[in-house]
């Protein structure tokens, strides 16, 4: 491990890469602060830049810096405006906004920054411990298990989508897989499902799809519903110091939530949002008497809990990405797409083939967290000024960046028409409450899923691999249960509500 750390240090601590961390964190914070723009949109916009760098280490460092920065920026707008930029920071506004209303905005931002820093750093330590172990287990997997594992990942993402949403999430996953089969296939060079359109020969571009699924609908919602942008007076931010007793109060919270958040983040589909809500709920239940009554009215513990948990979960979500090559969230799916574009295939072989990428990412996580703490915290009063940019200027720029992103990737204006078309479809899907992350994850995993499926089929000359490899069978059974059980329970709950099934 020490060897790896040194390798990571030598790869990450170059002037260019250090610049990437700082640049990524600052850009992420700036854009993440804008209400309505989540980390997925920001990372999607930044991908052409990252791919343009050409170096996978620098690209991944830049993108993870952006990711951290976006989460940090999201908590800033939650605290100052009660307008979370990201679902993962909604719980932050429960206690952060009341604190800001009491004139303790500076203190709230400090607590959020320290909690984020601790959550991110402890998460990175856990990642460093668990990822190599998990990837050495994963090296034993064959294509049949890989196929099954990806099916588990995809159904877990659907299963965690929420009550009544499992079917919809599954539908979106299949739509993503279907879209992934367009273009030249994995098995032969025969183009499939292009319907004679030349531009579809190489398939849909994942950058275009990522922009169309996340950045464009968000921007359109900002246009349609100005209340979503919730611009307000950010006021003066003073008094960044916290007292010793407050520090003492939040220390155990940070410790507990780093661990809990990290492990929730590892689960596919759970991610930062669930981690932050669960972290908040757990801490409220643990707190006693007066402290419990304070939750929701500006409790320091209630602010520290979701902030720690969501950052630890973000780090945790890197575990399945780096060790198995299976993204558990929309954000890590976008990162996976960027890595594939740079000729790096994340998975158990990442640590043996290109260890410098893996360790550089870990090191850059430490550096990124440090940068957010020492650079952003003192600058927050100035950075918060971005909240005052009029939306009449902001929205055309966001739209323009989505256009640029997909144009740079393909150098082709048909791509821009596809972007607008998919963007309209994505907006309609959002109106109908369909989750879009499963679609993108399905799209990105589709090729790998089919590759592994094909290899297993060829090895066993048919579907026999499902029965002959017990591990594969077990994983597929888990995948089926993950989808069926929540639907069954939702059905029971509904019937019980109607008074049909009493028990």
């Amino acid at each position: 491990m020490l060897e790896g750390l040194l390798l990571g240090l030598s790869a990450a601590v170059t002037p260019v890469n250090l610049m990437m961390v700082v640049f990524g964190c600052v850009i992420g914070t700036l854009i993440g602060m804008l209400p309505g723009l989540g980390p997925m949109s920001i990372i999607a916009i930044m991908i052409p830049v990252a791919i343009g760098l050409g170096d996978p280490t620098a690209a991944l460092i830049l993108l993870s810096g952006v990711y951290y920065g976006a989460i940090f920026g999201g908590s800033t707008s939650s605290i100052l405006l009660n307008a979370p930029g990201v679902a993962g920071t909604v719980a932050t506004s429960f206690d952060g906004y009341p604190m800001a209303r009491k004139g303790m905005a500076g203190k709230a931002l400090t607590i959020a920054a320290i909690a984020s820093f601790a959550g991110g750093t402890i998460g990175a330590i856990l990642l460093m411990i668990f990822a190599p172990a998990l990837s050495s287990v994963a090296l034993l997997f064959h294509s049949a298990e890989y196929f099954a594992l990806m099916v588990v990942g995809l159904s877990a993402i659907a299963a965690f989508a929420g009550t009544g949403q499992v079917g919809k999430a599954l539908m979106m996953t299949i739509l993503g897989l279907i879209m992934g089969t367009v273009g030249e296939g994995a098995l032969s060079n025969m183009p499939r499902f292009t319907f004679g359109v030349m531009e579809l020969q190489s398939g849909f571009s994942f950058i275009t799809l990522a922009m169309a699924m996340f950045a464009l609908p968000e921007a359109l919602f900002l246009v349609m519903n100005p209340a979503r942008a919730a611009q307000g007076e950010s006021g003066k931010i003073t008094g960044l110091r916290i007292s010793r007793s407050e520090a003492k109060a939040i220390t155990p919270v940070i410790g507990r939530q780093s661990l809990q958040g990290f492990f929730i983040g590892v689960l596919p589909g759970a991610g930062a949002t669930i981690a932050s809500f669960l972290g908040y709920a757990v801490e409220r239940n643990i707190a006693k008497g007066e402290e419990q009554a304070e939750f929701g009215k500006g409790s320091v513990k209630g602010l520290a809990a979701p902030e720690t948990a969501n950052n630890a979960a973000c780090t945790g979500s890197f575990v399945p990405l780096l060790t198995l090559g299976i993204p558990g969230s929309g954000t890590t799916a976008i990162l996976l797409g960027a890595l594939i574009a740079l000729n790096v295939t994340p998975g158990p072989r990442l640590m043996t083939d290109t260890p410098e990428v893996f360790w550089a990412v870990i090191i850059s996580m430490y550096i990124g967290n440090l940068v957010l703490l020492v650079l952003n915290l003192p600058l927050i009063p100035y950075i918060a000024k971005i909240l005052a940019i009029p939306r009449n200027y902001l929205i055309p720029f966001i739209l323009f960046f989505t256009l640029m992103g997909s144009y740079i990737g393909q150098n082709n204006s048909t791509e821009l028409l596809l972007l607008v078309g998919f963007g309209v479809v994505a907006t309609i899907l959002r109106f109908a409450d369909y989750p879009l992350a499963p679609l993108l994850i399905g799209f990105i995993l589709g090729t790998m899923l089919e590759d592994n499926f094909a290899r297993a089929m060829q090895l066993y000359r048919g579907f026999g691999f499902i029965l002959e490899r017990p591990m594969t069978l077990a994983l597929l059974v888990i995948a089926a249960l993950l989808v069926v059980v929540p639907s069954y329970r939702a059905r029971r709950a509904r019937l019980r509500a109607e008074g049909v099934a009493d028990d």
Partner: protein
Amino acid sequence: MALDRWIALAFVAICCVYGYAAFFTMDHLLPPILQRNPIWPSTFPKILAIAGVIVGLFVLLSPKPAPKDGEEAKDGVIDLSRIGDYHVGQAIALLALMVAYAMTLRSLGFLGATIGFLVLGGTILGERKFHIMIPVAAIAAGSIWYLVQEVLGIYLSPLPSFL
């Protein structure tokens, strides 16, 4: 029928077309040597088409969950029933502007098309301070062109095609 059911119906239709293409139009194009393979390019799409129809029908036919008590519409939450309050016209105008940008990027050149896009985009949203907007758009377009061209090394023709 609610919007999500219509989408599920459209999805089932897509799966049927996709399944038709996978089952009936692909296999006879396959060279005989590949036909001895246990897996064909159409195998995975066939499985997807069947799974898609099943899941689509499940979403289409499953009863609507009872609305939870105490759930109230908040500002900023996307809600189709409030579509009347939304600025749908502005959104559609901006989408049309994006299509126009795609069409004119070659003929007007990057700088012209981008400045036009940013200024017209602001105008659609109701901005009328052109003395600020035009310089901002020009500076932004110029510096982004420089970044893409020089730093990322991707060629973008800056000027109209007739120059």
